[in-house]
């Protein structure tokens, strides 16, 4: 959660996923202890962020939430990543973690300018879709993924990781994924605090005890099958 302004305008912090993080013992000295956020200017908060100066101190709280499920490696099951727009930023680190696995990456955006992070993944298994056809397949990333679906074995387990706009996730949730496939989605939401206090960023789930779960604390990663779209 990034505080984009110290004078309460905009009032709330803004939620971002971590694009890259380098431990304090990272071999390259200039990157040690660094954290990278990939963002797109869309509103008041990100408008403030583009005015940040080099070496400016930024107030942020994190990391927060649950993070992606990582199976024991090497994974016998293929890994599929599906990212839309800036959503691909939160999948980028998975590209690193799964670099020795059998991995397929689907990246989508409105135009070729919205295609990010394609070089963060092994080139031969990256598939790109743009809605205007300016790069790769013309259409949505979900359509592209569907068109290649029969190449994956429905009877074998697969791990799918998704991040993108709500419309994309809703479209995916209408697909019938084979039972053995796990589908993990990282959700975006307007957040109040980011650490579970305000209950403002909830998503409806199939949990009979408590329908609304907090995206910030109980998520942001949920099993796609658990989510109930209203």
């Amino acid at each position, binding site marked *: 959660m990034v*505080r984009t302004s110290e004078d*309460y*305008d*905009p*009032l*709330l*912090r803004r939620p971002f996923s971590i694009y890259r993080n380098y431990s304090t013992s990272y071999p390259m000295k200039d990157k040690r202890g660094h954290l990278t956020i990939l963002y797109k200017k869309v509103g008041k908060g990100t408008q403030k962020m583009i005015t940040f100066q080099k070496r400016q101190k930024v107030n942020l*709280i994190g990391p927060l939430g649950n993070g992606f499920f990582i199976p024991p490696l090497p994974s016998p099951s293929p890994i599929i990543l599906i990212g839309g727009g800036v959503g691909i930023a939160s999948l980028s680190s998975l590209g690193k973690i799964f670099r020795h696995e059998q991995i397929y990456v689907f990246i989508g955006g409105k135009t070729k300018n919205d295609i990010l992070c394609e070089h963060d993944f092994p080139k031969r298994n990256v598939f790109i879709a743009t809605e205007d056809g300016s790069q790769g397949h013309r259409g949505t990333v979900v359509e592209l993924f569907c068109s290649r679906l029969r190449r994956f074995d429905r009877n074998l387990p697969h791990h799918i990781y998704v991040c993108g706009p709500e419309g994309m996730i809703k479209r995916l949730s209408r697909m019938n994924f084979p039972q053995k496939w796990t589908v993990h989605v990282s959700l975006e*939401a*307007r*957040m*109040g*605090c980011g*650490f*579970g*206090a*305000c*209950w*403002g*960023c*909830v*998503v*409806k789930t199939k949990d009979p005890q*408590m*329908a*609304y779960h907090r995206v910030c*604390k109980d998520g942001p990663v949920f099993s796609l099958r658990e989510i109930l779209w*209203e």
Partner: protein
Amino acid sequence: MGMKIKPVIEPDLSISIGKMRLKNPVMTASGTFGYGQEFEHFMDLHQLGAVIPKGISLAPMPGNRPPRIFETNGGILNSIGLQNPGLEVFIKERLPYLKSLKTNLIINFFGNTLQEYSELAQRLNALEGISGLEMNISCPNVKCGGIVFGSDPKMTYRLVSRIKKLTSLPLIVKLTPNVTDIKVIARSAEEGGADAVSLVNTFRAMAINIHTRKPELGNVTGGLSGPAIKPIALRMVWEVFQVIKIPVIGIGGIVKAEDAIEFILAGASAVQIGTANLIHPKTGLEVIEGIRKYLLQYRFPHLQNLIGLLGK
């Protein structure tokens, strides 16, 4: 060296609400502080004057459909809808941690009927480790949720006098600003036997997305909080302070010590930090320190010297 060091007299920040003694006047506003534990990484909770966790009802409440939160200029609209796990689960899962805090624990509660309020008050009264109760008669986001009681002076009186008989704990009544005259409701609460009133809860408000032509909140309307409401809340505290004798607890857009001091000068004996907790979790502690420095700067030995000074 011949310099004399002037003895610094540490100001006394303590206040009392009924039989409850607070080491300082800073509390957390219910609904903005989760169940306390969410904040333990950011601050030492023991230093707060009191902790007020998220409101509790007898039965679990699912809350409202999202989106539940929307940022406006200087404020937040919310329509959480009092989501909570109900008293049983609260006692089992949340109370043990809250009880372990070395400060006052004030439980905020609400019901849909006189009967529900009564049962909750009785059951809370029987629990160990609670210093006081805050009765919510003011949530704008649920159909019942108490606002029926909070907008009618007769109902306020009936409810408060009934609950007062059922508990020996200090009783704070949390008021809504969404009434014609908040002074009338405050007086009814006092006549009913309330030990203090806290004000204000959020202002009913809304926002519309002109591109989708839909409301920004799933519940259409919500409650406005944050710095945007501070001047109105301050005026209400000032007005209420003139007409009642029990302590007033000021709430509404406090983000720094100066805001809290304004409320105290207007008549608040204590303050609650709400929206600011979400943005800067340790605001409460900074407000305490700021009040202390202010008292030192202007040589006030006691916080009491400051309360309602504007009217004196």
